[in-house]
C-alpha cells in the first residue's frame, strides 16, 4: 500500500481502495463494494453518533464508489452535515461530494444553500472559496436564483481578498452562462471593467474571462474594456521575461492573460481612437517580431505558450481584417509553420490560414503556399491535419488554380478517409462548377466524382450536373457521349445510371447518329442496368424509356414490350407499376404530336442558387458569404436561358430536385416523380379534363371552412367596432401550420390555406359571410410597409365586391420572398354591411420560416456546422417559460411544422430537439440550425438559433419562441 504523502489521509479509505485494486474480477469488485455499502449504511443508521472524521471518511468512500461508475442513493444528508463542520478538511469533502453528486431533492438544496450562505458570510477566505467553487461546480438554476444577486457584490467589494475575487468572477461567469436571465446587470458592471487595471494579475485573468463573455452579449455596456485591455496587453508584451515573476510561464510573460485579452478584443471592431489603435498595432507587431527571435528555452512549454499568444494575435488580426501589412505578415508566419516539424503547429497553421484566405488582403499571399498544402494532403499521417489541408485548398481556390486543386482533391479522394469523403465530394463539385470555363471539364469532373466516390455523391450533386447540362446547349452532346461511354463499364455506380438515364433520355438523339450508340444500343445499355437498381432509379429509367419512345420511334415496340412485361405491369411497387401502366398507355393511344408535346425536351431550369452550395455554405460558415455572392454573379452571367419561375403556371417549371408546387405536403421519396416529372403531370392533362389537373387547388373542395355554424349563423345584432385586429395569438398559430381560421367575428370568417416551395408561395384567403345579408363594396387589400415591399413580393387578384349572405369568396395571393424580412403584411378589409361601414385589419401570417426547406444531416455534420456558426452575431438565444404543456411529441410536430428538419439522435441529450433547414429567398439561401432545450423541472425552454445572418437568427428565434 502506498504511503499517503501529506494532509490528513484517511487510512480506512486507502485500505478500501487497495482492496478494490486487488479484486481479480468485476464480480469480486462488486461484492467488495456491496459489502462496503452495507457497512456504511449501518454506520449512518446506527445509534452511535459518528464523529466528523468517520463521517468524512465514509462520505469519501461513497464518492469513490460513485466515481468507479456505481450508483449511490444515500449519504447526501451526511455530506450536507459536513458542510457545517468547522474543520476545513471535513467541509471540503462535504462540498466535493455535493459538487459531484448533485441531488435535486429540494429539501436538501435548501440545506446546501443555507450552508453556502453561511460560508459566504463567514469572511473566512478559504471557506468563501469553497462555497464559491461549489456554486460554480453545480451551476444549477436553483443556485443562480439563490446567489446571482450576491456574488457581484462580493466581486466588487473593496475589502474582498484577491483569491476570493478570482473565484467570485469565475463563479459569476458560470452562473451567467447557465442562467443569463438571473444575473442582474447593474452598477457592478462598470466596476468589473476596472478590474482590468487591478494590481493582481490573477484577478485580472479571472476578470477578463468574465468580461469577455459579458461583452459578447452586451457589447455597448463593456465598450470601455477595449482601451483598458489594450494598455494591459501592451504592458505585458513589452515587459521583460522576469518582470511578471510567477506569472511568467517558461519565459513567456503571462500567456494566459495575454490570450484572454486578445480574445476580449475579438469581441469588438478595431478601436476607433487612433492612439489606442496605434498601441494595439504595436502590440501585434511586437508579438509577430518575437516569433522570429530565437527561443529562450528548448522546452515545448516555452514554444507552446509563445505560439499560443501568436496564434491568438493572428486571430485578432484576421478578425479586424483591416491592416494589410499585418495580414501579410501573419500569413508569412503561418507559412513557416506549415513546414514545422511539430504536427500541432502544422495543424493550427492550416486552420488559421483558412480564415486568412477569405480576406482580400491576404488571399494572394495564402495562394503562394499551394504546393506545401498539396504536399500535406499527400504526406500527413494524421487525418485531422489532412482535413485541414482540404479545407485550406478549398478556401484558396480561385480561377487561376482551380484545375490543379480539383485534380489534387480528386486524387486524394481515391484514398481519403471515409469520414471526410462526402465533404470533399461537395467541395469538388462546387469548385468545378464555380470555376468551369469549359463545361466539358465540369462534366468530366462530376462523372469522375461518381466513379471514385459514388456512395458519397449526394442528390444535390447529381441534380446539379443535370440542371447545368440542360441549361447549356453547348455541352449536351458531349455529356450524352461521355455518360454513354461511362455506362459501358461493367460495374458502374447507381448514381451514374441516374445521371446517364436522365441525360440520354433528353439528349440521346445527339449521339444516335453514330452506329456505336444507336437508339437500340443506348436502350439496351440502360436496360442492362435496370434490374440492379433501386426503385427510385428504376422509376427514373422508366421515364427515360418513354422519352425514348418520342426520341426514337423506331424502338417504340421494343420499349412497349419491356413496359408490358409482367415484371413491370405487375410490379409489387405501386409507383413502378403505375408508371409502367401509364407510359404504356400513353405510348399506345397518344398521337405523335401529343407525344412530342408531352415528352418534349426539358425547358431550362430557373436560375437559382445551387443546392450544393447551400449545403456547403452551412459547413463553411459566414466567412464565405461574400465569396458566394461573387459566385452567383459569375454564374448568372455564365448561364444562358435563365427563366424566372412563373408563379401562376399550373405546372411549375420542373426541377429534378423538387416535387412540383402543386403537391401539398412533402411526398415520400419513392413516390416523388422522377426527374422528367413534367411528363407525369402532363399525363393527367392528356387523359382527363384539363381543369381536374388543378383539382387539388380548387378551393371548393376544401372542407376547412364549411363549418356548420357558418351556414346556420344568425343575423348579428351588434356592430363590430372599427378596429385593427392584431390577433397575435391567431397569427402565431400559423407559424407552424399553413391552414386554418385566421379571424372570426359575428359577421365574417377568414380562412387561410397556403403552400410554400423554396422562395415561392401561394396563399388562398377565404372570406365567409356569416350573415344572411350581402356585403357590399367588399375590398380586401394586402398592405406591405416600405421595408417589407423590398423583401416580399405579393400579388393579389381583386375579388368580387359583393359577397352574398352565407357565401364564401376566395382570393389568391402569390408570394415571392426576395430577401429575409421581419414584419408581416397587413390584410385590410373594408365593406358595407346593412348600411354601416366595416373596416378591419389583421396580420397576414406570411413569416420567414415559411420559406424553409428541411435539411437532414448526421450528428457529426450538425455539430460541425453548428461550430462553424459560432460567431456571436450568428447566434440568438432565448430562455422562456413554457406557455403550453411540455409534451415532446407536440414539440416535435411544431418544429417540423416550423419547416426545419427534426434531427433525431443528433443532440447528445435525448431530451433536446435539434433542427436544420435552409431559408430560401430569391437573392440568397440561409442555412439555419436550431436547438431547443426543455427544462421540465423549471418549465422553461432555452432556444438557440444559429444562422449565417443575424437578422434571420433573430426573427426565427422570435417566431419559434412563441410556439411552446
Amino acid at each position, binding site marked *: 500500500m502506498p504511503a499517503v504523502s501529506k494532509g490528513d489521509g484517511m487510512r480506512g479509505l486507502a485500505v478500501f481502495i487497495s482492496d478494490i485494486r486487488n479484486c481479480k474480477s468485476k464480480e469480486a469488485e462488486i461484492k467488495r463494494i456491496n459489502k462496503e455499502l452495507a457497512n456504511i449504511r449501518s454506520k449512518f443508521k446506527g445509534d452511535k453518533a459518528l464523529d466528523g472524521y468517520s463521517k468524512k471518511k465514509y462520505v469519501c468512500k461513497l464518492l469513490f464508489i460513485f466515481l468507479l461508475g456505481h450508483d449511490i442513493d444515500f449519504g447526501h444528508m451526511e455530506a450536507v452535515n459536513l458542510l457545517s463542520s468547522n474543520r476545513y478538511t471535513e467541509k471540503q469533502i462535504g462540498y466535493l461530494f455535493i459538487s459531484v453528486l448533485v441531488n435535486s431533492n429540494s429539501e436538501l438544496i435548501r440545506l446546501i444553500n443555507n450552508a453556502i450562505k453561511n460560508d459566504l458570510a463567514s469572511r473566512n477566505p478559504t471557506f468563501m472559496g469553497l462555497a464559491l467553487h461549489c456554486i460554480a461546480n453545480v451551476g444549477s438554476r436553483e443556485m443562480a436564483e439563490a446567489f446571482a444577486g450576491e456574488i457581484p457584490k462580493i466581486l466588487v467589494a473593496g475589502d474582498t481578498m484577491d483569491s476570493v475575487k478570482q473565484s467570485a468572477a469565475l463563479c459569476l461567469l458560470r452562473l451567467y452562462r447557465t442562467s443569463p436571465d438571473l444575473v442582474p446587470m447593474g452598477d457592478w458592471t462598470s466596476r468589473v471593467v476596472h478590474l482590468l487595471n487591478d494590481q493582481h494579475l490573477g484577478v485580472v485573468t479571472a476578470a477578463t474571462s468574465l468580461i469577455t463573455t459579458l461583452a459578447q452579449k452586451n457589447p455597448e455596456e463593456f465598450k470601455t474594456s477595449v482601451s483598458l485591455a489594450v494598455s494591459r496587453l501592451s504592458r505585458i508584451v513589452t515587459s521583460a521575461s522576469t518582470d511578471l515573476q510567477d506569472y511568467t510561464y517558461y519565459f513567456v510573460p503571462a500567456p494566459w492573460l495575454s490570450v484572454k485579452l486578445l480574445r476580449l478584443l475579438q469581441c469588438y471592431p478595431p478601436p476607433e481612437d487612433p492612439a489606442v489603435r496605434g498601441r494595439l498595432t504595436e502590440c501585434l507587431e511586437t508579438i509577430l517580431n518575437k516569433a522570429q527571435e530565437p527561443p529562450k528555452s528548448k522546452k515545448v512549454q516555452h514554444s507552446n505558450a509563445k505560439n499560443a499568444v501568436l496564434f491568438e494575435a493572428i486571430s485578432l488580426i484576421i478578425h479586424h481584417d483591416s491592416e494589410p501589412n499585418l495580414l501579410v505578415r501573419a500569413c508569412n508566419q503561418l507559412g513557416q509553420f506549415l513546414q514545422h516539424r511539430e504536427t500541432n503547429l502544422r495543424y493550427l497553421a492550416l486552420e488559421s490560414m483558412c480564415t486568412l484566405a477569405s480576406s482580400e488582403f491576404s488571399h494572394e499571399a495564402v495562394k503562394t503556399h499551394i504546393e506545401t498544402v498539396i504536399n500535406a494532403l499527400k504526406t500527413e*499521417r494524421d487525418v485531422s491535419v489532412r482535413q485541414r489541408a482540404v479545407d485550406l485548398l478549398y478556401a484558396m481556390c480561385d480561377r487561376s488554380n482551380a484545375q490543379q486543386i480539383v485534380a489534387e482533391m480528386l486524387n486524394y479522394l481515391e484514398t481519403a478517409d471515409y469520414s471526410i469523403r462526402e465533404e470533399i465530394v461537395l467541395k469538388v463539385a462546387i469548385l468545378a462548377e464555380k470555376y468551369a470555363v469549359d463545361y466539358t471539364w465540369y462534366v468530366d469532373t462530376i462523372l469522375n466524382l461518381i466513379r471514385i466516390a459514388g456512395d458519397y455523391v449526394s442528390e444535390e450533386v447529381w441534380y446539379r450536373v443535370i440542371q447545368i447540362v440542360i441549361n447549356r446547349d453547348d455541352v449536351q452532346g458531349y455529356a450524352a457521349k461521355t455518360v454513354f461511354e461511362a455506362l459501358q463499364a461493367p460495374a458502374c455506380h447507381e448514381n451514374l445510371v441516374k445521371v446517364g438515364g436522365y441525360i440520354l433520355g433528353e439528349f440521346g438523339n445527339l449521339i444516335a447518329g453514330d452506329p456505336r450508340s444507336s437508339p437500340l444500343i443506348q436502350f439496351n445499355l440502360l436496360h442492362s442496368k435496370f434490374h440492379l437498381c433501386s426503385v427510385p432509379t428504376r422509376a427514373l429509367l422508366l421515364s427515360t424509356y418513354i422519352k425514348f419512345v418520342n426520341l426514337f420511334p423506331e424502338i417504340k415496340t421494343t420499349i412497349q414490350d419491356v413496359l408490358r412485361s409482367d415484371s413491370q405491369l405487375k410490379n409489387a411497387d405501386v409507383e413502378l407499376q403505375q408508371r409502367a401502366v401509364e407510359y404504356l398507355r400513353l405510348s399506345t393511344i397518344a398521337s405523335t404530336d401529343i407525344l412530342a408535346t408531352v415528352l418534349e425536351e426539358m425547358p431550362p431550369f430557373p436560375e437559382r442558387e445551387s443546392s450544393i452550395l447551400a449545403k456547403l455554405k452551412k459547413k463553411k460558415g459566414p466567412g464565405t458569404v461574400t465569396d458566394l455572392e461573387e459566385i452567383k454573379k459569375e454564374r448568372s452571367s455564365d448561364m444562358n436561358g435563365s427563366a424566372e419561375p412563373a408563379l401562376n403556371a399550373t405546372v411549375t417549371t420542373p426541377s429534378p430536385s423538387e416535387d412540383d408546387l402543386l403537391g401539398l405536403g412533402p411526398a415520400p421519396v419513392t413516390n416523388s416523380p422522377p426527374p422528367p416529372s413534367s411528363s407525369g403531370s402532363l399525363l393527367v392533362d392528356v387523359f382527363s379534363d384539363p381543369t381536374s389537373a388543378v383539382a387539388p387547388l380548387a378551393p371548393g373542395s376544401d372542407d376547412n371552412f364549411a363549418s356548420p355554424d357558418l351556414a346556420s349563423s344568425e343575423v348579428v345584432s351588434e356592430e363590430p367596432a372599427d378596429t385593427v385586429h392584431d390577433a397575435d395569438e391567431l397569427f402565431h398559430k400559423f407559424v407552424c401550420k399553413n391552414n386554418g381560421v385566421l379571424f372570426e367575428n359575428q359577421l365574417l370568417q377568414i380562412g387561410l390555406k397556403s403552400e410554400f416551395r423554396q422562395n415561392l408561395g401561394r396563399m388562398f384567403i377565404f372570406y365567409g359571410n356569416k350573415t344572411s345579408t350581402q356585403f357590399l363594396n367588399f375590398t380586401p387589400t394586402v398592405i406591405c410597409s416600405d421595408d417589407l415591399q423590398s423583401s416580399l413580393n405579393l400579388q393579389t387578384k381583386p375579388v368580387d365586391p359583393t359577397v352574398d349572405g352565407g357565401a364564401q369568396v376566395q382570393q389568391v395571393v402569390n408570394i415571392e420572398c426576395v430577401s429575409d424580412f421581419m414584419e408581416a403584411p397587413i390584410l385590410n378589409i373594408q365593406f358595407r354591411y346593412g348600411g354601416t361601414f366595416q373596416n378591419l385589419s389583421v396580420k397576414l401570417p406570411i413569416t420567414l420560416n415559411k420559406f424553409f426547406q428541411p435539411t437532414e444531416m448526421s450528428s457529426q455534420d450538425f455539430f460541425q456546422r453548428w461550430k462553424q456558426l459560432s460567431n456571436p452575431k450568428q447566434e440568438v438565444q432565448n430562455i422562456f417559460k413554457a406557455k403550453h404543456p411540455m409534451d415532446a411529441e407536440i414539440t416535435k410536430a411544431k418544429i417540423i411544422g416550423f419547416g426545419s428538419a427534426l434531427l433525431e439522435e443528433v443532440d447528445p441529450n435525448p431530451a433536446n430537439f435539434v433542427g436544420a433547414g435552409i431559408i430560401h429567398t430569391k437573392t440568397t439561401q440561409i442555412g439555419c440550425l436550431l436547438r431547443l432545450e426543455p427544462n421540465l423541472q423549471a418549465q422553461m425552454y432555452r432556444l438557440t438559433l444559429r444562422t449565417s445572418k443575424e437578422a434571420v437568427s433573430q426573427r426565427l428565434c422570435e417566431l419559434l419562441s412563441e410556439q411552446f
Partner: protein
Amino acid sequence: MIHFILLFSRQGKLRLQKWYTTLPDKEKKKIIREIIQIILSRNQKTSSFVDWKDLKLVYKRYASLYFCCAIEDQDNELLTLEVVHRYVELLDRYFGNVCELDIIFNFEKAYFILDEFIIGGEVQETSKKTAVKAIEDSDMLQETVEEYMNKPAF
C-alpha cells in the same frame, strides 16, 4: 471554456472526471467511453487535437496517464496543452514526483488541486506559487505517520 477534463490510463481506466457543463450521468458515461476510445486509438505521431462533435479535444500523455480537455472551437488549443501541463506541475509539486497511484489513492486531493486552478472551465490562477500555497493552506491539519497508522483500518 473547457467543457470537461478526463484523466485515464493507457488501459482505458478513468482516473478523474471533471465536468464544467451539466449533463445527465448516463450521458457522461457515454461520452467517457467514446472519448477514451477515440484517444487511445490515435497514433503517437499525430497532433494533439481531435474534432469531436461541436467541441475540440486537446490531449496529452504523461507516462501512463492521458489528460484530455474538451474545449470550444474558439479556445486556444496550444494554451490548453499548457493548462494540462500546469495541472501536472501542481500535482507534482503537491505529491512530489506524482504518479498514477497518487491520483488513485488521493483522488479527492486531485480534485481539490484542480478546483484551485480552474473554476467553471476557466483558468483561475496561473501562478504556481499562489495555487500551491492555497492547496497547502488547506492541509493545515498535518498529521504524523504514527497518527495515521493509529487510525482504524476499515
